[in-house]
């Protein structure tokens, strides 16, 4: 039984192509990265969300100026619901900048207002190291010359002013926004600054957004090995860090959906090799450390660190595993975490019974299918009604997804973890894995689930 049509999809049979139950010796992947079925209650966001919300937003020392009506800016203010922390909290995440386009501007164009806004924002916050300008839906239609205005403003204020043509409607999901952000940052920022000095152990971490401080757990592991993190893309990043990223010896790519583009370009232009890694759970983290160590010839050091860290966490993980053994999880994430976490859950004794992504491409689904067992439901861009059906009929013990899906899970009485912005992270590497396991335990065994009544037993 390869592709399948869920009951809630009887009226929209095109969803069958996106819905696959893994079967032995088959090489089918669900259809992905295509337009959403209109009106299907998708959970997807827009291109602008992928560009500013995900990739650029974490950059901590530039003014993120949203060119459009007010809503778009309001939603991404302070990272929106994303917890991408930085060490510059008194500026980053605190301010929200918008041109707040009015009807007149839509009719007569918003170029003047944009120009003025850039100058004024710079005047209020002269310490900001750049201005990033994001075009939202309406701008794409009225034809403001974003590039021209930004160039003029840049000449005037003397700091970098970078336009992003990330209008919400451009792509079928957030995914195109990642691509636009990657391309623009590569063209306009990467390679514009030389590091003060170089070492033989300079590495970039690409595609980690420092959700609840993940990077602050990840970086010390590599630093203890003797590696210098030259640049992070883009968690807790200064624009200067990104500007000097081209001098690294290696790019370690964590989120492999939102950043392969910039990795490819850096490989092409600067010859920086790319190493793909997953930094969740013991096994995957250890593998990443070993892979990096092998590249730099730091194997002995890596083994020492791995031994020390693993001995600290593994008794605790073993205890959690005894408690969780036999539990079943439904994982629904943006894209890569869906497969990063299959293995992490397995280490905890929890098997994945369904896996889904919001904006995954074929390679994400290939990786999911490699990792999950036969009979597992793999579904692309699931909508709210499908999620309800899976939570009800497939009966997972745990659902891991984002805020919008959280209250669906709760209303159905299914324990839930927020995998996007975390419950109480960080969740990355060894130390984060313990936080993760603790949160899984909390929700799985919360007494309140046992107090829920069914209408007819009342």
């Amino acid at each position, binding site marked *: 039984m390869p592709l399948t049509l869920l009951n809630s999809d009887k009226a929209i049979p095109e969803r069958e192509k996106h819905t696959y139950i893994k079967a032995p010796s088959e090489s089918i992947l669900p259809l992905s990265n295509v337009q959403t079925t209109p009106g299907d209650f998708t959970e997807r966001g*827009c291109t602008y969300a992928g560009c500013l919300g995900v990739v650029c937003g974490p950059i901590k020392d530039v003014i993120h100026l949203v060119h459009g009506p007010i809503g778009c800016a309001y939603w991404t203010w302070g990272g929106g619901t994303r917890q991408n922390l930085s060490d510059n909290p008194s500026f980053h995440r605190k301010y929200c900048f918008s041109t707040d386009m009015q009807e007149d501007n839509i009719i007569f164009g918003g170029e003047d207002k944009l120009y003025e806004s850039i100058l004024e924002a710079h005047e209020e916050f002269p310490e900001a190291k750049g201005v990033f300008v994001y075009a939202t839906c309406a701008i794409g239609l009225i034809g403001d010359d974003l590039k021209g205005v930004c160039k003029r403003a840049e000449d005037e204020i003397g700091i970098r002013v970078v336009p992003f043509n990330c209008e919400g*409607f451009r792509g079928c999901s957030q995914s195109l926004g990642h691509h636009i952000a990657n391309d623009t940052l590569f063209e306009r920022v990467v390679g514009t600054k030389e590091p003060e000095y170089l070492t033989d152990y300079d590495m970039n971490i690409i595609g980690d957004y420092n959700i609840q401080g993940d990077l602050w757990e990840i970086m010390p592991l590599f630093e203890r090995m003797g590696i210098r993190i030259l640049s992070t893309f883009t968690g807790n990043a200064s624009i200067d860090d990104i500007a000097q990223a081209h001098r690294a010896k290696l790019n370690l790519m964590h989120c492999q959906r939102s950043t392969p583009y910039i990795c490819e370009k850096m490989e092409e232009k600067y010859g920086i090799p790319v190493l793909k890694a997953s930094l969740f759970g013991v096994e995957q983290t250890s593998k990443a450390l070993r892979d990096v160590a092998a590249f730099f010839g730091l194997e002995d050091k890596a083994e020492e660190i791995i031994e020390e860290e693993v001995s600290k966490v593994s008794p605790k993980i073993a205890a959690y595993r005894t408690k969780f053994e036999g539990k079943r999880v439904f994982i629904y994430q943006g894209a890569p975490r869906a497969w990063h976490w299959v293995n992490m859950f397995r280490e905890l004794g929890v098997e994945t019974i369904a896996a889904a992504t919001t904006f995954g491409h074929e390679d994400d689904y290939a990786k999911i299918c490699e990792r999950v067992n036969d009979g597992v439901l793999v579904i692309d861009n699931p909508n709210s009604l499908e999620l309800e059906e899976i939570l009800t009929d497939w009966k997972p013990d745990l659902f891991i997804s984002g805020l*919008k899906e959280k*209250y669906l899970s709760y209303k159905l009485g299914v324990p839930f973890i927020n995998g996007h912005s975390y419950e109480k992270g960080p969740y990355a590497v060894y130390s984060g894995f313990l936080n993760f396991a603790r949160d899984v335990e909390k929700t799985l065994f919360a007494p309140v689930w046992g107090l829920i009544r069914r209408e007819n037993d009342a």
Partner: protein
Amino acid sequence: MRSVTINPAKMCQPIGAMYALFGVHAAVPLVHGSQGCTAYPMRMFNRHFGELVQVAVSSLGEDASVFGGKKNLVVSIENIIARRHPELIGVITTCLSETIGDDIDGIIREGNFEESKVVPIHTPSYVGSHVTGYDNALKALVTTLSVDSEPENARLNILPGMVNPGDVIEIKQMLDSMNIAYTILSDISETLNAPLILPKPPFPRGGSSVAELEDCAKARGVIALCEHAGGSAAVYLKGKYGMAADTICPIGVANTDRFLDAVCDMTGVEIPYSLEQGRGRLIDAMVDVHMKTCGKRAAISADPDIALALAEFVTELGMEPVVVSSSTASRKFLQKAKSVTDGEILNGRDLYELQRAVKDNETDILFGNTKCTPIAKDEDIAFVRCGFPVYDRVGYHRYGIMGYHGGIYLTDMITNAILEWGER
């Protein structure tokens, strides 16, 4: 005035329209636009209410932006009807579909959708704010659905505006104690504060029914609690069906008195003993704390009608409303604000400006939503959370600040904020 907005005090129209539709039973908000315009506002509702919200989107893409979004809209409506059988679908436009210029009224008319009512709601994001969006949505619901038929049904229509479930409950309890028949349009008191009982119903229980929206034409009167969010529907009902209409935001003693007087005038009912007792209890609470509240300088940031009513209430508490700020620019707000404060009035300005005003006016206490929290922290002043969204603390949607009983809760919140600030 600055061109750039820094830390906006307002959101855009579509989220206000969604707010209104969540209060209609078995209704689906369908946003005609691209996907950020649903994904983002949904999270705002999730955070404020701690509730599931389901909003559909027509997922306009590059093609639609060139050739128009008609096909996406029609397919969306058909899919929603086939899969969820809602009683009503509210089609909410966005900056995208309005700029494309889709004729949603025409598309809906031609579509002849039978199973569900389909209501076109124009909410271009580049006009007004979330408040305007709520107002437009409620007006569209009433205009499209109300049908005149004899006889008058002796009910009152109450249009609460963008308030919390707790506020609607306060209003209902007052009207119930007067034995008055009424219809709340739209009623989020249960839909956005839903119980967890399995199995989960396909749509949350509660909300105004389509039948109630149709019948609202027959009521003897209408009271909009927020002139800027519901007022247009009230004006329509008055003009079209000749019913009595009033706008009063019942926050504080005098405003609640006025609200109840208007209810009595429209219905001929008298204020019951229990409400007199409730009023007395509020006064008692205010007397108890007046040594703490009198003389405090307050800054208020809220939607226009709430801001004005709060300013009046803090004045009753002996405080001085030194800054009164409306999320939404409005001439009416400006006029009225001048009569409730001698302080600084911010008419649709951003929170960056609010912070400047808070500083300049030596404020002791700030009223506002979660986006105002950093201002209170920076300026080291007492802070009372109110409005939408509040998500850095839980439960605010559950408790009303309207009516006498809500006034007690608000009085206590204010006093406790002052006490906590004193102990910091």
